[in-house]
């Protein structure tokens, strides 16, 4: 018995909400970052589900690009976190609230 599309979409919505919650409640920059990855992945899941339902490859191509951008984002973001940790000795996002270092 095949899984209905709605099940994938609801799962994707649940994962996205978890990502949002993580960004809202966690103050550790690394965990906030992981929550963002969670949101990106939930969107990827709906892309793939719709690609499968519509029988079109474009959804999977979009996921490919999302993955590329996510990889770049993680590299740059983690570099920034390390730089902040070097300068401030903290990875708490509430301690870093000035644009001026």
């Amino acid at each position, binding site marked *: 018995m095949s*899984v209905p599309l709605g099940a994938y979409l609801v799962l994707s919505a649940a994962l996205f*909400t978890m990502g949002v919650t993580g960004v809202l409640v966690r103050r550790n920059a*690394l965990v906030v970052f*992981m929550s963002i990855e969670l949101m990106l*992945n939930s969107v990827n899941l709906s892309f793939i589900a719709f690609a499968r339902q519509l029988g079109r*490859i474009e959804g999977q191509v979009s996921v490919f690009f999302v*993955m*590329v951008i996510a990889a770049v984002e993680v590299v740059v973001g983690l570099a920034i976190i*390390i*730089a902040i940790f070097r300068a401030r000795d903290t990875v708490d996002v509430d301690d870093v609230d000035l644009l001026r270092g």
Partner: protein
Amino acid sequence: MEMILFAAAAVGALAGGVGVIASRPPVRSALSLLLVLGSLAVLYLLLAAQFIAALQVIIYAGAIVVLFLFVIMLLHARTGEAPFERLRAQRTVAYVLAAGFLAVLVTVLLARPVAEVGAAPDGFGTAQAVGAALFTHYVLPFELASLVLLVGIIAAVVIGQPAGRAR
């Protein structure tokens, strides 16, 4: 069979998601993220996206999570969470807002019956099919992606320099 696999992967993904946002040590969050990514790879296989499933395992589980773990180890001295209490009111509000958000999303998603998923076309989602699309219709974005990767590498090198040598 498909249903069982879906249920297992969905439970894995949800458990991992809870683990990411609820566990105190960042290492545990990173490993929960790995669980989510692995479960999603299984779902991608169910959805006839073999190439993307392989990419998911190689790029996300292989590279991104390892990068996270490296950084956690680099900063391991003091990456513990600050005391919770600073945010008590916001925390409650955040949960309420998130629950409302989920309710809205699910309501919208289930507002109209979705069509049954038909059989996938032959060869759908193989490396060949995705590659053919990437190198014909989407060749310009593909090249731009390589440029973005290059910029990312340079940015990481520049930002990662010790302070003082940056300029």
